[in-house]
């Protein structure tokens, strides 16, 4: 019973952990406040917020929250409400959404657009048009002033935030310099805004391209480019790789050398005990009785005691007799045998 409870607990913890990890891989990737050229399905150019799934698995972002309320406000709201009731944070965020639909947008459930494939983007339009579909948020952004946007997960925990500067002009976007969150931010869970990771883009060059729904930086396999340029002969890769292969197998060698010594040492000790025990018993046997039958019985007992007998499987089987079956009752007799090749030597 305890085992079952333990296994269930492990399964639940594993499921929760994986879920939380997945959501944390979402991030805000690019924002445009005064849109001049990226039209939605109705042909309207409104402000937009691009999210990016930086993980290598599909993320369902339904029930996540996008808000323009600052982090301090939300935290204070949580503290205030939690002192009054024991409501969970996602419930509190839902209540906040109901009170301030022009500031909090909850991504609806059940839309295929909310299943974000690995390493892909999704663009939400900040047009306040709640009847236009899942990708249209209930709030708008304000041109010419600072815009704060935050992404909260289904549990009400902050996933990512950005402060779009007031200086952002029409036709400019505020974008991450490279795709997704820096790897160290994934680990420590610190998703607070870091201005050094962001830049203003105006579409004047490839580097400054405005890229809703696409990669901010054209993906290149840096490793291949690096090895092609810096290790044209392949000698360094060879040295490094052989080093790793040797090191891995060398460590295995050392470990199993030690294991071998340890286990053969145990065997030796056992053997010594056995060899010590044997003559004493033999002397005892010969000393007490010279009878041949007694000696034989003692030897047999010792033989069994030292576990020197053959191991039996202990499995009883029946030997089927094929002759008893007729061709009518046995499929094996009806089918042809598989052809086998016999070499003529």
């Amino acid at each position, binding site marked *: 019973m305890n085992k079952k409870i333990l296994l269930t607990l492990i399964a639940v913890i594993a499921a929760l952990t994986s879920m939380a990890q997945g959501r944390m891989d979402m991030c805000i990737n690019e924002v445009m406040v005064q849109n001049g050229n990226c039209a939605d399905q109705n042909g309207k150019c409104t402000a937009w917020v691009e999210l990016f799934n930086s993980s290598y698995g599909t993320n369902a972002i339904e029930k996540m929250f996008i808000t323009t309320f600052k982090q301090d406000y939300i935290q204070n709201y949580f503290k205030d409400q939690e002192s009054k009731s024991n409501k969970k944070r996602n419930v509190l965020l839902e209540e906040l959404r109901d009170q301030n639909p022009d500031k909090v947008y909850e991504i609806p459930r059940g839309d295929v657009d909310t299943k974000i494939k690995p390493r892909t983007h999704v663009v939400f339009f900040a047009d306040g048009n709640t009847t236009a579909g899942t990708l249209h948020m209930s709030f708008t952004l304000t041109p010419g002033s600072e815009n704060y946007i935050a992404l909260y997960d289904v549990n009400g925990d902050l996933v990512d935030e950005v402060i779009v500067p007031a200086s952002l002009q029409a036709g400019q976007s505020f974008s991450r310099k490279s795709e997704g969150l820096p790897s160290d931010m994934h680990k420590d869970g610190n998703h607070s805004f870091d201005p050094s990771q962001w830049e203003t883009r105006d579409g004047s060059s490839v580097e400054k391209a405005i890229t809703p729904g696409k990669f901010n930086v054209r993906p290149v396999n840096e490793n291949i480019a690096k090895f092609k340029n810096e290790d044209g002969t392949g000698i360094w890769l060879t040295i490094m790789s052989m080093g*790793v292969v040797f090191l*891995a197998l060398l460590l295995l060698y050392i470990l199993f050398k030690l*294991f071998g010594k340890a286990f053969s040492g145990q065997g030796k000790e056992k053997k010594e005990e056995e060899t010590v025990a044997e003559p004493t018993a033999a002397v005892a046997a010969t000393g007490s009785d010279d009878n041949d039958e007694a000696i034989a019985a003692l030897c047999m007992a010792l033989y069994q005691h030292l576990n020197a007998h053959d191991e039996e499987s202990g499995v009883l089987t029946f030997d089927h007799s094929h002759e008893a079956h007729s061709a009518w009752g046995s499929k094996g007799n009806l089918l042809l045998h598989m052809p086998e090749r016999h070499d003529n030597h």
Partner: protein
Amino acid sequence: MVLLNIAENLEQFWHFTGFYNVSLSPESLIMLCVGLFFIYLAIKHDFEPMLLVPIGFGILIGNIPFQPGNEIGIYEEGSVLNILYQGVRQGWYPPLIFLGIGAMTDFSALLANPKLMLVGAAAQFGIFGAYMVALAMGFMPDQAGAIAIIGGADGPTAIFLSSKLAPNLMGAIAVSAYSYMALVPVIQPPIMRLLTTKKERLIRMKPARKVSQTEKIIFPIVGLILTCFFVPSGLPLLGMLFFGNLLRESGVTTRLAKTASNAMTDMVTIILGMTVGASTQASEFLTADTVKIFALGFMAFIIATTSGVLFVKIFNLILPKHKKLNPLIGNAGVSAVPMAARISNDQGLKADPSNYLLMHAMGPNVAGVIGSAVAAGVLLGFLG
């Protein structure tokens, strides 16, 4: 009017047939001959029949000319062959084969004499030697890495890595790897004889100690943790290999081990061999790159065999007299289980009819399987 309709229908049917379409792609006839040759080698000369029969027949399947657009071909989305091919394309089959290999392999020979692991490591130089030559021949680093893995003499590993690094070359790489594995008895012995003296071939190795069951159980667990901490990119292969071995050695999952090593491996081998063969369509396969890949694969096998044998000779310089290794087991480091170990044994018996090297050679042989999977992980880590 009716006659005209019949004529039109017959003409339409004619355009649908292989006889008409072969005139549009006559090179498929060459591939059909290659397929027939593989089947001949397998049945007549017993060259890796378990692999060459499915691959050879797959080549026939993949090169029957047809009119595209009917969801028939292996590259046509939605076709049955295409669905089966996804296991190769996405790299699902090789780890399953490794599960079976793990469940079949007895690592006792290696555990009894763990220094043989280093021989398995040394033979992986075949991979990286071929990598350097491939770069010199103008291949990109990722393509060179995918081609070089042929030197590991391990078909599933070659398919796994090429599906990740150079999917367009996978057919040629897989066929090359399996072809040379079948030709190991032809390629290796001359190199082994050339690199060893009569005296070295006569070296008798110390009989292996008995390995306890506990050691055998610990090995897959420690082996997995250690190797995959070094190369997590090798996890699909190494994870399945060691998992299969634990199923075998634990003693409590005999039924699972039997299924993994027999029924499952057989099923995956059939589908893998057939789809790899079918993927070698003439338009993809008959290129100058394929010729280069075959040349590089041959070179990789030679380098791997040479480095394994030479390593044992060098290793002998530091080993005490009673612990010296017979250099004839060096070739077995190229995995190709158990063919390479059998060759060591055959060559040993030729030099001394009472010197059986088979069990000694199984050590580097199974170490080669681990070594080539680690090498694939390293290449994937650097170039993936």
